[in-house]
């Protein structure tokens, strides 16, 4: 029995989320005593293949290289995975916008009901996953012969990325490249700060920030702490910050050592994305704001007074 893990990367580095996904696969592998393979689909992503091959638990790397995979479409990724799916009992991808985009297509093509965003592995066919914005945890069992699964990174510690020496095998993918969907352009947020899902500290702003300019008050503190900056949906909708800052049920799921929520009320959809953080701080002028119900340290204050003070105190 063999397990396939789909690598996520930027053609240079294997993502941290992939290591969490690999950790979930390892739990299944130890249950079934099976072998893990990793597939790398990209363009000139040899260094990613080498990093995949170095992961302690990976026995074989499938390398799918094509210029069209520089910015791959869901259609191409799914077709490649399906074409190479024979013999695998489990297919894992990260629950990122990429994994969520193509993995359901794989499920449909294999006539399998996928399981989204697992946070634990109970056995080779049984997993837990949050539902209703994390207000309930479902234990679910797949009856399909192949399990198609996305993994929420916050549920697993990263797998060992060194010590392995897997073989790397090239696979031909020309016939699986989509022609009904093509990449046009991307507008990525450039930042010197750590990525939200990888940051140890996050400071997020909500509607209470009042404007995009005022996010500067958070940024200077973020820079002192080496933190990432996040936001609530209200702050994104108002145009204060780009969409990729959104933390929550339908945005990014984070669990840093420290999460500081500033001018955020604490709607369930926001809590769904951050309530597994180790330490939560809330700064809000409304003492009845629901965010205080999950905060380890609450400060009832006007953020325009508290943030400069905090900056000075650090």
């Amino acid at each position: 029995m063999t397990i396939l893990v789909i690598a996520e990367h930027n053609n240079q580095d294997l993502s941290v989320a992939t290591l969490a996904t690999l950790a979930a696969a390892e739990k299944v592998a130890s249950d079934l005593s099976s072998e893990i393979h990793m597939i790398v689909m990209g363009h000139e992503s040899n260094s990613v293949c080498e990093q995949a091959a170095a992961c302690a638990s990976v026995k074989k790397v499938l390398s799918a290289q094509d210029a069209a995979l520089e910015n791959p479409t869901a259609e191409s990724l799914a077709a490649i995975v399906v074409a190479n799916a024979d013999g695998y009992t489990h297919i894992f991808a990260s629950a990122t916008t990429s994994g969520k985009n193509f993995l359901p297509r794989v499920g449909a093509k294999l006539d399998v009901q996928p399981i989204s965003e697992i946070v634990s592995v109970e056995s080779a066919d049984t997993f837990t996953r949050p539902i209703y914005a994390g207000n309930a945890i479902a234990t679910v069992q797949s009856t399909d012969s192949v399990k198609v699964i996305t993994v929420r990174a916050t549920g697993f510690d990263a797998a060992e990325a060194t010590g392995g020496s897997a073989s790397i095998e090239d696979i031909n993918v020309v016939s699986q490249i989509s022609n009904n969907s093509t990449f046009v352009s991307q507008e990525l947020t450039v930042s010197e700060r750590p990525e939200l899902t990888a940051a140890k500290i996050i400071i997020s702003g909500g509607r209470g920030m009042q404007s995009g300019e005022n996010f500067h008050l958070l940024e200077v503190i973020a820079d002192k702490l080496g933190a990432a900056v996040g936001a609530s949906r209200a702050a994104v909708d108002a145009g204060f910050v780009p969409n990729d800052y959104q933390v929550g049920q339908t945005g990014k799921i984070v669990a840093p050592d420290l999460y500081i929520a500033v001018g955020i009320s604490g709607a369930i959809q926001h809590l769904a994305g951050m309530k597994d953080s180790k330490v939560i701080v809330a700064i809000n002028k409304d003492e009845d704001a629901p965010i205080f119900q999950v905060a380890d340290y609450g400060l009832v204050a006007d953020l325009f007074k508290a943030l400069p003070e905090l900056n000075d105190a650090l």
Partner: protein
Amino acid sequence: MKLLVTVKRVVDYNVKVRVKDDHSGIETANVKMSMNPFCEIAVEEAIRLKEKGVASEIVVVSIGPKQCQETLRTALALGADRAILVNTDEEVQPLAVAKLLQAVIAKESPEMVIMGKQSIDGDNNQSGQMLAALLDWPQGTFASEINVADGKLAVTREVDGGLETISLTLPAVVTTDLRLNEPRFASLPNIMKAKRKTLDEMIPADLGVDITARVKTLKVTPPAAREAGVIVESVEELVEKLRNEAKVI
């Protein structure tokens, strides 16, 4: 162009759901139900395409119990032309949703399907992608902007790093993200008018689809509770606590 839009009936997003004491599921008795917010955005986008003259007809589809009629009537009141209810009291998982929709689409032949990116109850985020795969259509998921020009569909998508734009041939499936539009409210005259619009009903067997659940829910439990902590009096005290008590900075 004919559009097909899917609308799901879910527990209203403002409800704080409770897990049943026997861990069999969620308490739904006397709980407010509404149209899934992402489906509201899908309906709104379809209406805007019709207002722009891009779309000619909007057919809305819901799968679920009788009460989904209300959800469909809401969509009709907002501006959809016709509704279809695939009536079942069983749990319908995304693979079965996709198969049922595929069968409806075989009869209706729309050129574009607009769906929500995610149901806020099951949080699956699968049905649109699975439908597109079954149809062998391209997909534009998590859309924050769509444009039809020269027989192609440009979709700007919300991705982890920011935004991505792709170009799709038609027919295609689109799933909506939060920033695609801001849905309108239905006016009273339109709610009255919607009562006279056509609402067809069928059952999964009429469509020849086996909807048997492939994933069994063994139990549903409440999440680990988080205790509220302390209220600090000053920024100074906060920093002291973060340094010396929590040791996180």
